């Protein structure tokens, strides 16, 4: 089946083929991923295997629904409203319902501050398709860190939805690392909702899968909330990456920033949609977005559409992007120091992704990421060297 995902909040020229992505996925024959949860500390509570209806009931978020504000200055969003908005949109919900995916709920009780992160390791059997849903509820005063790690032994398909609900003053760091094997299909759909003075830090790394859909929508509903997202990706030869991130400001004096860093190798395709969305009454908010792409292959396709939508006067929004290859000057400099093009490219990609990789809270996953990047750029003779 084809699902329309990663839609822009407002339409633009259809010929650009950027308004939404078509994602093919067969919601049948789904196998549960092997899930291990490590470092399960503190008072956090875990509920597993909630049926679709029970899980959906838990993700009904408070506040204005998209439906109520469907007409914004005469512009109609192309997507169906969601009770808890996510980056990939209503069709991702539909897919999960079609496949009858059970959900899990992780709840951090009030003032819960585990000393270590909680790791969810999803491993998908070779050749299989798996799906998962997770709701993280951080009650008042929580200060916690969760790591999601998706891997496969061979080409496989895995998709997950993660919802994050932050109560007043809650702080959560969510790190999501995808290290599936070549030829794999992967999607991660994130919805966040932050109340007063909440803080949501998201770090994502996509390494390995051939087809990737990444969506995130964070609603800064409360005053003085903070949101920060860093996403890194390495587009392997012939890979397809489709990204849609939205930061929606509803509360006052909120601050949001989203940084994206990636590299595209020969024949890789990437589409990036990023939106800073200042809704009415989001007085005093600041939004910042930056995208940097290194083009490593001749036959690449890099599409970028960064939006700033403003319904409020007293805001500051900024987007910047740089897209290009390593400059001749840089390469020459490297070569004078005995570093060839491939190694120079590896260095640049490592430097680009290091800001995210270095903050992965698990030593073995962090090491695995660094080894993986080195392997991607390995050329004949490296072993001997």
């Amino acid at each position: 089946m084809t699902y329309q995902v990663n839609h822009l909040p407002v339409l633009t020229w259809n010929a650009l083929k950027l308004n939404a992505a078509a994602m093919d996925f067969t919601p049948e024959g789904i196998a549960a991923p092997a899930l291990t949860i490590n470092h399960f500390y503190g008072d956090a509570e875990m509920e597993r295997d909630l049926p679709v209806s029970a899980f959906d009931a838990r993700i009904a978020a408070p506040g204005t629904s998209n439906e109520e504000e469907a007409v914004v200055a005469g512009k109609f969003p192309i997507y169906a409203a969601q009770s808890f908005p996510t980056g990939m949109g209503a069709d991702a919900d539909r897919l999960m319902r079609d496949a009858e995916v059970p959900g899990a709920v992780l709840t951090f009780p009030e003032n819960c501050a585990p000393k270590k992160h909680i790791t969810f390791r999803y491993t998908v059997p070779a050749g299989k398709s798996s799906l998962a849903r997770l709701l993280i509820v951080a009650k008042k005063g929580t200060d916690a860190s969760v790591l999601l790690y998706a891997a496969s032994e061979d080409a496989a398909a895995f998709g997950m939805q993660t919802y994050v609900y932050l109560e007043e003053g809650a702080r959560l760091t969510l790190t999501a690392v995808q290290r599936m094997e070549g030829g794999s299909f992967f999607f991660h759909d994130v919805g966040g909702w932050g109340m007063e003075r909440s803080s949501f830090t998201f770090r994502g790394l996509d390494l390995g899968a051939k087809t990737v859909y990444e969506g995130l929508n964070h609603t800064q509903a409360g005053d003085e909330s903070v949101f920060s997202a860093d996403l890194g990706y390495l587009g392997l030869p012939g890979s397809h990456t489709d990204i849609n991130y939205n930061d929606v400001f509803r509360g006052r004096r909120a601050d949001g920033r989203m940084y994206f860093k990636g590299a595209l190798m020969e024949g890789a395709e990437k589409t990036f949609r990023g939106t800073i969305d200042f809704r009415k009454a989001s007085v005093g908010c600041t939004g910042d977005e930056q995208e940097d792409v290194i083009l490593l292959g001749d036959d690449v396709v890099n599409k970028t559409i960064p939006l700033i939508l403003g319904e409020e006067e007293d805001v500051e929004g900024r987007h910047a992007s740089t897209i290009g290859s390593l400059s001749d000057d840089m390469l020459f400099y490297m070569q004078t120091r005995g570093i060839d093009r491939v190694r120079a490219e590896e260095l640049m990609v490592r430097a680009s992704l290091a800001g995210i990789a270095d903050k992965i809270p698990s030593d073995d996953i962090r090491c695995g990421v660094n080894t993986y990047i080195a392997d991607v750029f390995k050329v004949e003779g490296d072993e001997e060297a």
Partner: protein
Amino acid sequence: MKNEYRKDTPVDGDAGRILLDEAERELYDFRDEENEENFYRMEEGLTPEIVRQISAEKHDPAWMLEFRLKSLEIYHKIPVPDWGPPIDGLDMDKISSYVRPKTDMQKSWEDVPEDIKNAFEKLGIPKAERESLAGVGAQYDSELVYHNVREDVAKSGVVYTDMESALTGEYAEMVKTHFMKLVPPTDHKFAALHGAVWSGGSFVYVPKGVHLEIPLQSYFRLNAKGAGQFEHTLIIVDEGADLHFIEGCSAPKYNVANLHAGCVELYVAKNARLRYSTIENWSKNMYNLNTKRAIVEEGGTIEWVSGSFGSHESYLYPTSVLRGDGSHAEFTGVTFAGRGQNLDTGAKMIHIGRNTSSFIDTKSICKSGGVSTYRSSVEIRKSAEGSKASVNCGSLMLDSISRSDTVPAIDVRTRRADVGHEAKIGRISDEAVFYLMSRGISESEARAMIVSGFASPVSKELPLEYAAEMNNLIKLEMEGG
């Protein structure tokens, strides 16, 4: 005289800020009564019969009638765009696509009928022609009423004439080769509409190596109520030549919809340069669905300077196709959306040749419930190795009942390219207003000065008279709130 500001009003610094009295608000809003004695008006609607009538009125060659009818067929097949401002208020059954003053085109202002001449006098066109232009075309509703080019300019081989004369005269073959080839009727619904009912506009040919030191100008005035204006501008700047072309437009306000669906096609040959400047000030009942496109050959340059102030709704995205190696495009634009306006403007850059470069710098301002959308696309094709593109868009919101969006797209298909983009949205800083007020300037003047300064990248690129007009429009919009 309401156009006296051109000579008497002090110009203050780069921004050329101009203070106007209340009466000058009506500068663009006067209107002439249309009557059967002076005007011929085609019935409303859009049918093959109406298209045939227009074609007969204009004594089209046979191929043009065929082209018009084919365009009409295409128009009916293409859906209304679903991505821009809503145009539900535009009912083509209530628009007359051809209204002609009962006069021939004149080469002397003395011969232009008094009421029409007065209209252009109020807009300062004859005066501008005397003082700073190499040639002028003046269109009133669907037809040109005046066209003239300076003798020395004509002697250099420059052709500046109305489209109808060009279509049947010495340059007929050149027109046929280029007409709607860059913007084919299949491009979008309103390009097809234009192909069916176009009327008026200018044809310019600048021969090889000729540099025009002073600009040519066409001015379009739509006076008729419930009418459309569909002028076609075709400019060919031959190898190594240089031209600055200025386009101005205005209309009085009515309580029914008017439509402007013009088309501009610009051909810039090897090492040639064309600057195309526009100050658009259509009335606020106007649907401005205009198409502008340039194709640039090796080493050539196209520069767009655009000020969008009028219209009820606008779709306007001048496009530069950089086909030749080393060709270059620049777009500098400002859009000011006030009460009742939804202006969707921007630019498109298509890099095809190697080592091409483009630069977009836009400013959007919205106020009093106006909606301003900056929309653009930069496409760097696989063949465009070594190309560079830069996009810079700034938005200024002057209150919280307005809306400002930026929707820029970038598509890069070669690694040998460098693309940079930056967008900012914000408000007038209280500190800046306070600073100016502390020096004895009133708050409203301080805000107007800051807005003029914000738009100064555009006004700096315009000849003084037009910079003054643009700043005048900003001043009017600021007072309008």
